[in-house]
């Protein structure tokens, strides 16, 4: 490979130029970029809210912002991070870019629908940003009634309409993935030869399709009750505020799996590549994704153990929540076993992956505390819960997202990122994360309730530690933003397969041509065949992707 040839080669990035070539593209790889830019924007907006929250909590008094502002900050932090960053991040950026390539397809099944999904997402985002700019919303991202539907005098309706709209983007993306995976696999790409990344996205897509309509309905009921005084959740009119919680968590608990399952898919790719091993127990890892997706729909009531729901209902939900821990544990054990007798390299993506396993283990185990009825009563709605779900959503999902972004960056851009700075950033993020959120487990056990902008002085030391950690974490997040953008110009040319990885996406040039493959490959071996020197892929006579 010589560089000038690679530079002149036609690929998806240089095939067209200009803003409209991006805004009207139907190429899944370009749409992935549209999402990448937008979710990055929302991530830093949400991060800004988090920064202000942590600064306020540095002292027990409310000295930086007032109660009302603080309540809006944690609400907007949650809404932005969950609906506009975490839910779309891995599926809509990495999934969009990779799923067609991983299964040997030229694009998603519905390319125009894919672009429409992005516009819907942006429209929803604009609504929510408008609500934020107009003065914000103070209900918490959970929108509990009757506070949200009657009492709050902030911009609840506009915000929930934004989330309602964005939900359709999830539904359409999920639909697109499911149809693509069913119908567009290359010859020889059987279900059990697919990369686990694809399995994880298949499971995620099922949740998108089955769960998202419920949040859409629920939030529109809140908006209708607010705007027209319907008595659905308002007890004054015979409504039931707990009904809201049932409906809300019916989606929002599975939504946690929307955030983590794609991350698990990323980790399976990284662990195998950087230990040069087949995944240990492929079928178990694949089916555990489906088990998590299925069981995830049956555990919503564990958010309501102290709400006054029936004692026996709580017991059933506790039991089912315990069961969902099993497939998660199976995954962790299989990833760890994959390392055994491997050939382990410590490039930045692998550091993220190893960090993920550790933080996910901690996040998963503390989830058991919350599923255990007798303990949940004490730690429910305290900082213990905050710490737990940040271990899952930030410690795990964001680590997986960043690991995946680094891993496939050379494929997406054709350039390498600076390895040593990237390793440093991964370590900073891991340390900063633990310093931020581990003290919150202790705070929760000691009884500090969540959503408090002032707190008793005995909680200050742990809060100071947490804020210190957050400032380290912030550095860790800004670093990749800087060097990844820099690498677009200054990065070394990556070549087709810089990691010596398996998987069809590495058998096409970096950046790939618009149709991904010049010639559709035929798959003859299982995923992760790292024991052989070269991947075995058949091409029709005379056809082979130009060697980059």
């Amino acid at each position, binding site marked *: 490979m010589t560089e000038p040839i690679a530079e002149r080669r036609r690929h998806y990035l240089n095939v067209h130029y200009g803003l409209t070539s991006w805004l009207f593209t139907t190429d899944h790889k370009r749409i992935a970029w549209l999402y990448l830019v937008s979710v990055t924007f929302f991530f830093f907006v949400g991060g800004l809210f988090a920064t202000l929250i942590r600064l306020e909590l540095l002292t027990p008094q409310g000295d930086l912002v007032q109660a*009302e502002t603080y309540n809006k900050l944690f609400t907007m932090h949650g809404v932005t991070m969950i609906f506009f960053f975490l839910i779309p991040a891995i599926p809509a950026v990495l999934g969009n870019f990779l799923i067609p390539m991983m299964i040997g397809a030229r694009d998603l099944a519905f390319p125009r629908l894919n672009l429409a999904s992005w516009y819907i997402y942006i429209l929803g985002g604009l609504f929510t940003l408008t609500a934020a700019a107009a003065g914000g919303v103070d209900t918490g991202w959970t929108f509990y009634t009757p506070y949200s539907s009657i009492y709050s005098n902030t911009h609840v309706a506009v915000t929930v309409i934004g989330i309602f709209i964005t939900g359709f983007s999830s539904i359409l993306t999920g639909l697109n993935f499911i149809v693509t995976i069913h119908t567009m696999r290359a010859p020889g790409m059987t279900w059990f030869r697919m990369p686990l990344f694809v399995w994880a996205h298949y499971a995620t897509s099922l949740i998108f399709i089955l769960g998202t309509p419920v949040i859409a309905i629920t939030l529109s009921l809140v908006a209708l009750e607010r705007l027209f005084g319907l008595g659905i959740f308002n007890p004054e009119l015979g409504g039931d505020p707990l009904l809201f919680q049932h409906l809300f968590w019916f989606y929002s608990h599975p939504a946690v799996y929307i955030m983590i399952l794609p991350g698990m898919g990323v980790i399976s790719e990284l662990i195998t590549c950087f230990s040069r091993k087949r995944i240990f127990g492929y079928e178990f890892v694949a089916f555990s994704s489906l088990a998590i997706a299925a069981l995830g729909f049956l555990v919503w009531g564990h958010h309501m153990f102290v709400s*006054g729901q029936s004692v026996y209902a709580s017991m059933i939900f506790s039991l089912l929540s315990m069961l969902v821990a099993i497939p998660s544990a199976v995954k962790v054990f299989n990833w760890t076993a994959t390392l055994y007798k491997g050939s382990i390299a410590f490039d930045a993506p692998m550091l993220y992956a190893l960090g993920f396993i550790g933080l996910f283990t901690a996040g998963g185990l503390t989830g058991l505390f919350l599923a255990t009825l007798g303990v949940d009563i004490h730690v429910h709605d305290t900082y213990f819960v905050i710490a737990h779900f940040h271990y899952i959503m930030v410690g795990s999902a964001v680590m997986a997202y960043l690991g995946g972004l680094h891993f496939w960056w050379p494929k997406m851009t054709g350039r390498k990122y600076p390895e040593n700075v990237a390793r440093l950033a991964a370590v900073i993020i891991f340390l900063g994360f633990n310093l931020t959120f581990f003290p919150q487990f202790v705070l929760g056990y000691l*009884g500090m309730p969540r959503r408090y902008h002032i707190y008793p002085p005995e909680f200050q030391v742990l809060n100071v530690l947490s804020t210190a950690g957050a400032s380290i974490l912030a550095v860790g997040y800004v670093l990749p933003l800087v060097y990844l953008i820099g690498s677009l110009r200054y990065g070394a040319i990556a070549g087709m397969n810089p990691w010596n990885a398996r998987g069809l996406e590495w058998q096409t040039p970096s950046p790939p041509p618009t149709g991904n493959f010049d010639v559709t490959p035929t798959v003859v071996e299982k995923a992760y065949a790292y024991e052989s020197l070269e991947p075995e892929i058949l091409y029709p006579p005379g056809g082979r992707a130009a060697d980059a």
Partner: protein
Amino acid sequence: MAARVDALFYFLVAVSVFFSTLIFVLIIVFAIKYRRRSENERPQAIPGNLRLEVLWTTIPLALTMVMFVWGAKVYFDISYPPIDALEISVVAKQWMWKAQHPEGQSEINELHVPAQRPVKLVMTSQDVIHDFFVPAFRVKKDVLPGRYTTVWFEATRPGSYRLFCAQYCGTQHAGMVGRIVVMEPSEFQAWLSGGAAGVSMAGAGETLFQRLGCAACHLPNGTGRGPSLVGLIGKKVRLQGGGSVTADEGYIRESILHPQAKLVAGYPPVMSTFKGLISEDGIMQILAYLKSLNREEGTEGKK
């Protein structure tokens, strides 16, 4: 009870520490032992091992079932207060806690209780959902508008303990805090009888019962336009159109505010709503009065 919650908590901590350490050590050991020594390494594939898969499915399953049963048992006991518990009414509103003792004392953002005696709180909210949380007692329960929830605890040592609202309830949520003052039983008695000798809750309820005109229809002998309320609480009543309902606090409250919702069989739908005429505190006083009628009725009021 706090000790039981903590024992379970520490069991969970032990399990978590064990598994985190296991995974952590394995990762570190593998990462060092199997680090890539040359670029040409191509380790043998290990596709999996069914026995290991079964092992690491069943062991976590067994452990989580232990957690479930243990946790459910603690939860069950926390959910049902002992019969002889001292009953105190609590009304939550944005952003304060109001408590009423049966003897009539009422407090705001403070609750005096005796040590070594089970205390049961019957709680409701005037507006949004709140949550009664005393970390030291390991108890927490949402307080909802439109229904009653209960929580109970038995404080072991006298002292002052923090009370938090744990369910986000609006602007001054973080200010909806108070303290539980646990006193020696004798001191508590002194506290109860001290201060301005007020009317008992039941007494206040009786006054309301007369003033709002309830007594005109709900004659004690059952000959009035409404059913007799003597000995009603806790009894099953037959409803018009079939079916029955246990006349608990929630049912009485509903019948005061929405009288037509569940009509007692044999009585005409003539009662009008008292919504806006009576506060949540007032309803709790009426309830206390009705409960006192139960007690007066004594043994004959079984059926």
